[in-house]
C-alpha cells in the first residue's frame, strides 16, 4: 500500500488535472471550492479520476456527500448544524476533520470540509480495506 505522502502526491496531481490549477496552489488544507475554485461538475471529474488513478470504486455520495442532512429535520436548525447533525457528519464522513467546522457549524460552510487532506485520508482508508 502506498504511503500517505505518495497518496497525497497522486491526489494533488489529480486535482491539478481536474481543476486546471498549478501544483503550487495545492496545500493539504486547501478547500476544493473556496481555494481551488471547484464547481459541481469538477467533483464528479475528481471522483472519476481518483477511481482510475487508485483502481478503486467510489460510491456516489461517499466522498462528496450532497445531502447528508436531508434525512432528518433535526440535523439543521436556523442554518446551523445541530449536535445530532454533527454526529451524522462524523458517521457519514469519518475521514473529514470537522474540528474547526463544529466550532461554528454554519451549513453554508460545509464545503470547507472538502479539502485535499480529506481526500487523501479517504483514499488511505479505502486502500487499507482493499
Amino acid at each position: 500500500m502506498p504511503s500517505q505522502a505518495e497518496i497525497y502526491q497522486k491526489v494533488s496531481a489529480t486535482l491539478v488535472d481536474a481543476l486546471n490549477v498549478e501544483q503550487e496552489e495545492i496545500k493539504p488544507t486547501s478547500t476544493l471550492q473556496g481555494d481551488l475554485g471547484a464547481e459541481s461538475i469538477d467533483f464528479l471529474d475528481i471522483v472519476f479520476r481518483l477511481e482510475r488513478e487508485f483502481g478503486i470504486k467510489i460510491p456516489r455520495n461517499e466522498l462528496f456527500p450532497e445531502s447528508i442532512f436531508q434525512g432528518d429535520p433535526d440535523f439543521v436548525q436556523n442554518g446551523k448544524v445541530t449536535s445530532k447533525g454533527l454526529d451524522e457528519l462524523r458517521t457519514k464522513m469519518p475521514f473529514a476533520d470537522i474540528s474547526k467546522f463544529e466550532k461554528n457549524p454554519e451549513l453554508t460552510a460545509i464545503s470547507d470540509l472538502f479539502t485535499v487532506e480529506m481526500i487523501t485520508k479517504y483514499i488511505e482508508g479505502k486502500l487499507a480495506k482493499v
Partner: protein
Amino acid sequence: MRLKDQVAIVTGGSRGIGRGIVKAYAAEGAKVAFIYKGNQAAADSLVAEVTQAGGIAKAHQCDVANHDDALKVVEAVEAEWGPVNILVNNAGVIRDGLFVGMRPEEWNVVIQTNLGGTFNFCHAVAMKLARQRKGRIINISSVAAEHTNPGQTNYAASKGAINSFTRALAVELAGRSVTVNAIAPGFIETDMSENVRNKAGDLIKKMIPLKRLGQPDDIAKAAVFLASADAAYITGQVLTVDGGLSLGAVAV
C-alpha cells in the same frame, strides 16, 4: 477554414440536414465521423463525395437510441482521430399521426431516437469535452417544438425536450467552456419533410416570409457558425432557421 483539424461527430449524417452538415464541416477542415442507421449506400456516397472534394469523413453504423453503441462509436472515433471537439445531434425520426390513434411504439421510437439519441451521444462526450475545457454540442431541434401541427405530439414533445435539455446542459458545462446550443429548422427540403410538403403544396411557401423552403445547407451554415470560434460566447440558445416561418405572418 473555420473548423480546421477539429474532430466532429454528426448523428443522422447520411441524408438530409445531417448530410449537409457533414459536407459543410468537412469543407471547413473538420474530420467528420457521421452516424447512419441503415442506409449504407447513402453513407458510402457521402464519404465518396466528401473525399472527392478534398475533405475527410468516415461513416459509422449505429442506432443512436442504443447507449452502449454510442459509447463504442465515440471510442472508435477517438482511437482513430483523437479527442472529439464537436458533437451534432441530428438523428431524428417522425411517426406522425393523431394522438388518439398513436400506438405506444410510435411514441417510443420518436422519443428514444430524437431525445434518447441526443442524451446518449451527449453522455458519451460531455465529460471528455469538459476535460478538454472546450467543445461544442449542437442539437438539431425543430420549429415544431414551439409551433406545432396536428399529428406531431411525439415529435413536438421530443423537440421541446431537446430545447430544455440544451439549456440545462449548457448551464452544467459552461464552467468548462463547453457550449451547448440548438438549431430549430423550419421546413427544409429533405426526405423527412416530403410527405408534409406534398400535402401542403404551395401553402407552405405562403407561410414562409422568405418565400422559399429551406435547404440542408441553410442549416449547415448555422451549424458551422455555432461550432466555430465565432460562437464562443453563445450557449444555451435555440437558433431558429426557418425563413421567418415561426413569425406567424400571413402572406399579403
